[in-house]
């Protein structure tokens, strides 16, 4: 288990390094930010001074090294827009993003597990058809369009819920439900097919031959094995939720990191783009690490491999 853990930790560290490196080099292609920071018509001397201040006159590799050194301490530089440390700006927006992502994840997982189980246990019946149709539609529907449609119905027409914004639980309902539809669709489909596979396993027959109650068999022998791949799926979904936050938060005017990044792209606020993307990717890596640990706990065979 220790070796497994250390291995995963090393993988995560490499992943984080890879992510910040990509962020650095991609944002450097974005262009020279000094041109944006100075008023039009600034003299070349002023330009050169600012570039020296920002360290932009140094060779790219040295810039990269000092970038690595800085971000190790959480320093992504000052936000051009806000004139404050970029990481601080991003961190302020993080709770809103996490609140939405985790609410959606929990709600969607519950829905998906229930729906997937119903579908698998009612093989060939109407219930399976209904669940699978919803799951297929849920997977094919872009989150932002579903969001707009739900706003159209529940906020614009019925006026039950706000069209967007943040603060009260009512503001959370539409965005969380929208994302939960997407989450539950993926989980329901995967869980159904896993359950059907596991139900055919020899050890399920063994469990039945022991005279165990169906509930015990379903939870301990079938459910546990069928849920293992779902755990991996949750990692992928979390990536979609965090990455997709740029879209959902735009749709629902949700003041999270996603919307901040979009604003920063519009204003070429590189430090904020870098900090926002790096932080989300970092959180994603941490979540994946946690998921790998959970995976190891759920499946004893994994622990010994590698």
């Amino acid at each position, binding site marked *: 288990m220790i070796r497994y853990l250390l291995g995963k930790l090393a993988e995560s560290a490499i992943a984080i390094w890879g992510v910040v490196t990509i962020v650095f080099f991609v944002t450097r292609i974005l262009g020279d930010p000094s041109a944006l920071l100075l008023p039009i018509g600034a003299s070349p001397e002023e330009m050169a001074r600012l570039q020296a201040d920002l360290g932009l006159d140094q060779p790219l590799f040295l810039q990269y090294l000092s970038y690595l050194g800085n971000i190790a301490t959480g320093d992504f530089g000052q936000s051009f827009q806000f004139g404050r440390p970029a990481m601080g700006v991003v961190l302020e927006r993080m709770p809103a993003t996490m609140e939405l992502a985790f609410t959606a994840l929990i709600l969607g997982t519950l829905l998906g597990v229930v729906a997937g189980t119903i579908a698998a246990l009612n093989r060939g019946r109407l219930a399976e058809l209904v669940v699978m149709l919803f799951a297929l539609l849920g997977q094919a529907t872009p989150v932002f369009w579903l969001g707009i449609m739900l706003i159209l119905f529940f906020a614009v027409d019925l006026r039950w819920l706000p069209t967007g914004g943040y603060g009260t639980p009512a503001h959370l309902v539409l965005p969380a439900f929208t994302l939960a539809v997407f989450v539950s669709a993926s989980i329901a489909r995967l869980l159904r097919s896993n359950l059907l596979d596991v139900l055919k396993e020899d050890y399920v027959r063994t469990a039945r031959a022991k005279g165990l109650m169906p509930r*015990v068999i379903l939870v301990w022998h079938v459910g546990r094995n069928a849920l293992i791949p779902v755990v991996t799926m949750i990692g992928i979904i979390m990536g979609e939720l965090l990455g997709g936050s740029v879209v959902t938060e735009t749709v629902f005017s949700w003041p999270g990191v996603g919307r901040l990044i979009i604003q920063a792209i519009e204003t070429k606020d590189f430090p904020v783009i870098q900090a926002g993307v790096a932080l989300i990717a970092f959180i994603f890596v941490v979540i994946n690490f946690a998921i790998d640990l959970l995976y190891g706990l759920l499946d004893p065979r994994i622990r010994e491999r590698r």
Partner: protein
Amino acid sequence: MTAPLLEVKNLSVVFDTEGGTVHAVNDVSYTIEAGETLGIVGESGSGKSVHVLAMLGLIPRPPGRIVSGSVLFEGRDLLKLSEAELRNIRGGRIGFVFQDPMTSLNPVLTVERQLIEPLTRHEGLSRRKARERAVELLDLVGIPSADRRIGQYPHQFSGGMRQRVMIAIGLACSPKLLIADEATTALDVTVQAQVLDLVRDLKKRFGTTVIWITHDMGVVAGLADNVQVMYGGRIMERGPVRSIFKQPHSAYTWGLLRSLPHGETRLTKRLYQIPGQPPDLTEPPVGDPFAPRNPFATPRCFTETPPLRQIEGMAPGHQVAAWYDLPALLAAEQGTER
């Protein structure tokens, strides 16, 4: 004489598939006395496993379906019991040992968990008591340092050890009847011999009645009191193990015995192989199911199904379903060869 422990009468099982109805078990009847060990032998698809699983509600339904028959166990017809009543019998009065413990044990649960399940379920033991009993059981089936190993997972055990765990699970609630389905098939020959020794020993100590299902006549020879040979969902021959090995009356049994390696023949002769393919049970052949592969088949074998009966010159308890007289035919053949 007391009533038999298990009495199977006219059991027929079919599977409804897209390709048609598969007649997996056809009109099977037999009895097992308490304390007896019955070896059921046949190729895969002979119905040897399916009929046992079916009578305890362990085949998937659908597609499986029991068409007819009755199975009396301790005076009750298993086929008439509800699923809840069957659950109370499975793992309690009747224990199971399945083949390939690699797949038959749950990979993500500890051996402890899998072993105490039947104990808490049927004997109402507390978790602690059940654990104590479970350690005893592992000890009993010859797993060293059982107390430590009980907390491990199946993949941490060798194949032979896993099979011992499987046997411990089957025996957990001191069943009246133990059903072992190809329980040693996945094992190396040496490990197989050890496991068979263990089973013989346990049988002697507890007087458990055993149904040992296998495709291997050799396994049956050293273990069973009686042998029942199945083919195409039917019983072809049945009788005391000694009598069957000495004088088989079914051509199929004879083929199975000839394909066994013997001490002296091993090096000199090629092993006999029964020619042809097992029958397609979607359209079960009329008559003797083995007739198309049987060099001794008579015209009647193709038109009329032979009943299982005792014919003249057979040892007591020895029955065969055949229209031909195998011992006479064999004797004649030997005569012409000379």
